[in-house]
Structure formats: C-alpha cells, structure tokens
C-alpha cells in the first residue's frame, strides 16, 4: 500500500466519516474497494441513513445480464450484505425477484405479490426510487421500440415511465450507458436503433432520455460488465447523499457521465497494467498465452480510462490483461466499434481501402524513395 493511501486511511480513521466533505469521500471511495468501504463504515452508514430504506428499481433492457452477474459475483460483500449495510430495498430486479409476468388475454392479472408487471407499475407510481438501468433501449423499428418488448409493452415505454419519476438514474454497463454491443455497426443497427440511457455511443443527443424528452441527469457506470465496486460504491454514495444530484455531477463526472474516480480522465489502464514493465522494455507477446505486453495483440489499455489495473477484478486478484487477455476498452463510449478488431493493434486498423497506417505510409515512403533514386540517377547523369 502506498504512503499516500496509508496517509489517507490514517486521516479517515481519525475523522468522523459522516462529516467528510464530498471530495474526501470520493477519494476514499476511489481508494477503497466496496468491501473495505462498507466494512469500515458499516455502523456509520446504517445510522446515517435518514430514510428507512432506499428503493431501487433495476430494469433490464437489451443486454446479457452480465452486469447483474458481475454485482452478484462481488464476493465480499455480496449483494445481500451490501443491500443490508446500505439499507437498500432492491424492490424490482427482473432476474432476481420472485414474481413473474402474468397475463390473461393480453392483460396483466393477479396482484403485485405475484405479478412483476403490476409490481413495477406500483413502484413507479409510489415514486422516490433510484432507477438502475442495465441494457440498451430499442428505439426501432421507426421509433416504436418494438425490438425489445418485455411482458406486453416495449422496454422503451417502461423505461420512459420509470425514468420520469426517478430520484436518480444510474446506467450500468456499456449497453445502458452508450448502447454497447447492441448498437454496434451492423446491417441492422439502423433498423433496431438501440440507444443508451443518456448517450448513444459518444453522442449525447441520441440518448433515449433526449428521445423521450426527459431531462434528467444520469450517472454512467460503463463496462462489459461493470465492476461490482463501481456499481456498489456509486449507489452507496448516492444513497448517503455524498453525491448530490444534480449539483455535484458536473464536478464528479467526465463528459461521458462517468465518475472520474473510477474512470479517470488523466489515467489509462495501461499506466498501471501488471504487464507494463514488458512494454517499457519493448517486449511484446506475438501470440496469446505469453507473459509479455499485449499491445501487439490489440490491447486497448492505452486508450481505456478505468481503474481496472489498480482495483483489479474477482476480489481484487486479477484483471483482463493479467489473465492474458488484451484490454478491449469496454468502458469507452465507442465500444465495441472503436475497439474493433479486438485483437489487432489500434494503429493497424484499416483506414483506407482496408490498408492500415503502417502499410499506406510505407508505400508512400517507398514510392518517395524510388522517385528520389530515379531523380538522383537522372541528375547525376546530367539529364
């Protein structure tokens, strides 16, 4: 542990956590894992909650549920411990709740005790909840949203209804934040027209909220999947009022709505990569399975703003590059298009008629050399 972190911990030990200013709090959040953070301040957190519980409505759009799996895999604390410590009521989460949609003749039936469709409507009606969105929102075909229907209504409709009454909106995972894989360039991308909550790729004017005419700030937690710490600590900070929405957002989020404490604008994964030493020595793996720098295998860590290499994954024991896989820049707004081809060096991407910068430049340099040679011979011969 670095001296700086030790000093910070020492400082925090001697302070009343609840009186920490937002800046110090965010620093602590950035340094600690969720486990340390929630464990250290359990008592204070619980006693600090001015309201009995905070409701969370967690909606799933077009996605793989990987982000939910990621948070469920957050081992210590697990999701139950975190919910308990933060006094959270995870009121609605489609893959975790017991209810399911019940329809007769196309209409929802029974009560919210059994029918998830009625439950979500009731929760939205009650208001006072944090909305967590996982997955992209289909706008196609032709703005109808019919490419993603859950129960008997479009996800676009459900999202719009929930977003309109939410106290705070968190988009979790790259699909929800920027459209992700669902809106990658393809023959059908224009027809399906998947959108992120506040952005579609890098474009904030194409977020679903704008499409629906809802003007609410959003905290984006991208990643494919998002790290459990990023999700839990952000939710925790919002619940504890350490992130005041919307007042604090301008100072704690980057231009793509990501908390800079987890997605630092001045830092890339490459800088703390466990394989960085190999890069510095110019030692690169040419095929998967080696121990050297993965850059030549298409690693996008030099372009990815995330604290993966500091925080690590799977209980802080590993991360993609450590496990041997090149970073694919899954936290970046242009993902996956901006990271494709995943296993080709970024500068080797085709830029003109399929040729990459190196090839085109070498051709130009070669042509210049030939011309120079011919010119030189002619001049020497006095022609």
């Amino acid at each position, binding site marked *: 542990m670095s001296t700086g972190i030790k000093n910070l911990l020492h400082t925090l030990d001697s302070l009343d956590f609840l009186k920490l200013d937002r800046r110090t709090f965010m620093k602590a959040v950035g340094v600690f894992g969720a486990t340390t953070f929630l464990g250290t301040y359990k008592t204070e957190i619980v006693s600090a909650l001015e309201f009995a519980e905070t409701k969370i409505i967690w909606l799933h759009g077009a996605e793989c549920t990987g982000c939910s799996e990621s948070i469920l895999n957050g081992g210590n604390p697990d999701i139950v411990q975190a919910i308990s410590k933060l006094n959270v009521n995870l009121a609605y989460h489609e893959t975790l709740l017991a209810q399911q949609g019940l329809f007769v003749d196309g209409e929802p039936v029974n009560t919210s005790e059994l029918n998830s469709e009625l439950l979500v409507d009731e929760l939205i009606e009650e208001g006072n909840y944090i909305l967590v969105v996982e997955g992209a929102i289909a706008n196609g075909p032709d703005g109808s949203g019919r490419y993603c229907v859950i129960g008997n209504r479009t996800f676009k409709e459900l999202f719009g209804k929930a977003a309109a009454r939410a106290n705070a909106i968190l988009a979790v995972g790259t699909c929800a934040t920027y459209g992700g894989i669902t809106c990658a360039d393809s023959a059908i991308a224009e027809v399906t027209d998947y959108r992120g909550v506040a952005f579609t790729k890098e474009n904030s004017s194409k977020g679903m909220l704008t499409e629906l005419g809802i003007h609410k700030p959003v905290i984006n937690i991208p990643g494919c999947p998002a790290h459990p710490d990023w999700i839990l600590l952000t939710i925790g900070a919002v619940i504890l009022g350490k992130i005041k929405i919307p007042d604090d957002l301008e100072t704690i989020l980057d231009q793509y709505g990501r908390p800079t404490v987890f997605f630092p*604008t*001045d*830092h890339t994964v490459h800088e703390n990569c466990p394989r960085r030493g190999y890069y510095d*020595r*110019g030692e690169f793996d040419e095929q998967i399975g080696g121990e050297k720098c993965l850059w030549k295998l298409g690693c996008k860590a030099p372009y990815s703003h995330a604290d993966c290499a500091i925080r690590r994954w799977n209980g802080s024991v590993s991360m993609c590059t450590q496990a041997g896989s090149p970073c694919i820049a899954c936290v970046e707004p242009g993902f996956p298009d901006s990271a494709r081809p995943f296993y080709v060096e970024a500068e080797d*991407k085709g830029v003109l008629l399929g040729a990459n910068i190196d090839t085109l430049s070498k051709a130009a340099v070669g042509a*210049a050399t030939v011309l120079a040679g011919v010119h030189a011979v002619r001049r020497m011969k006095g022609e």
Partner: protein
Amino acid sequence: MKPKDNPMVVERYTVLDRTAHTIHAVAMLVLIITGFKIYAGWDFMSFHNARALHMIAVPALLAVNWILIPYNIFSVSEGGVQEKIAHFMDHYVFGPEDAKRLNAIILNFFGKGEYPAFTIYDEVSGHYKTKLHPLMKILIVIEGTAIFVIAVSGIVIYRLDWALLGLPIGSWILSAGDLVAPAFNMSSLQFYRALHLVMTYFFVFELIVHVGILEFNPHVWKYHKAIFWSGKEDLSDSRYAEIVKPKPKQLSDSEIWHESSDTPSEVVKD
C-alpha cells in the same frame, strides 16, 4: 550580402538560419528514431531513455520552428510590416512563378526541357528574390502544419491532463478529438495516437523527398555546405541560380544628343 573578396559569393543562409536548420534536423531525427522505438518496441534502447530523448527533442524542435525560424524570416528583411510580409511571401510561399518552375522540373524529370533555376539573386538590391526549390515551398507549409498536429497530438500522449498556466490544454485537446474521432470509429485518444503515427511517417516521407529528391544531386550539394556550414553561395556556379542584373539605364534623346560633340557610340550605358 556580398563578401568583399569575391563579389560573386553571397550569403545564402545566415548563422541563425544554419543554427535553426541544424537543430531542426537533429531534433527531427531524434524524434523519429525514438518515436518509432517507443511505438514499435525496437530493442536498441531502453523505453525510458527513448522517452527522455524524445522529450528533450520536442522543446528543441518547437522552439526552433515556432520562435527561431519566424524570427529569422521576419528579421532578415528590411522595411515595415508590409515589406516583411512581401519578403515572406516571395521566399516561402508557393506562387505562380514557383508553379512554372515546378512544372518545368517535372517535365525535365520526364526528359523534356531544362531544369529551371529556382534561386534568383537580385544584384541591384543585393538580396535573394527567392531561393527555395518550389517543392520545398510546398513542403514547408505542410511541414508547419504537421509539426502543429504532431505537437498537439503529442501533448495528450505525453499526459492526458497536461495544463499550461492552469489552462487544461490536454482536456481541451481530448474534447476537440471527441468531435472528430467517432467518424473514424476511434476514441479521442486513439485518434490522436493514430494521427501522431501518421505525422511521424510524414516526416520520414518528407525527409526522403527533401534529402533524396532535392538534395541527392551532385549539383545541389553546394547547398548542403551552405546550409550546414558556410552559409555562402557562389553565384558564378549558375546551376539552379539566376542573377537579375541591373537594367540598362534608358537615356532620353536629349540626354544622348544635347552635346553636339558626342556621338551615339560614345554614350556609355550603365
């Protein structure tokens, strides 16, 4: 300016010109070599040494290009702002006359016509009217732009949050990149790194054109000596150089004939 001992030898490059060119050339070579080392992982040097050399060469190159060369250009000419601008346009900006020369050079390359003179010295004013090869005039503009682009892209590669006097220049550059990069399916940083690489290749290309096409010619080697060492050009070697002689003074009839003793053959023209 003509040295007193030989009126045909004139100063082609001042000491500052030569100093600027030498620093420029060395810095550029260091940047290209260390840049490719960093990019491609060449194993002839450690990453840290390459980076350190790279970062030493950057301010040298920028200082020469953005301070010394502009100072040279505008200090060497006499007169006011208009005269200085006219001097700059004549000497460094590709104009119609340069287009004609370039056309003749291309024709000559294909075996038609003579290689034109591109250095024009005016004996009356004692200064060059123009001295650069027309291709160099094109390259200078492109190179100036390339240096600006590679410097800007280099800032964010060096440090994402680079600031100058508290101004978040790095963030501004990245934000500007965000406007363009998505069109190339790249993130801003990715775009700038690619741009940096393209510009590096441009400098290699330019080096080949500059040294290879312009200078890899025994008759042009006199200019190598001039730019790196002597600064002088001997105008008696007329290859690629043309001297504008003073025009003969036109005398009026009365000046010629007003003294009856003179005969036309005795009138001496200047």
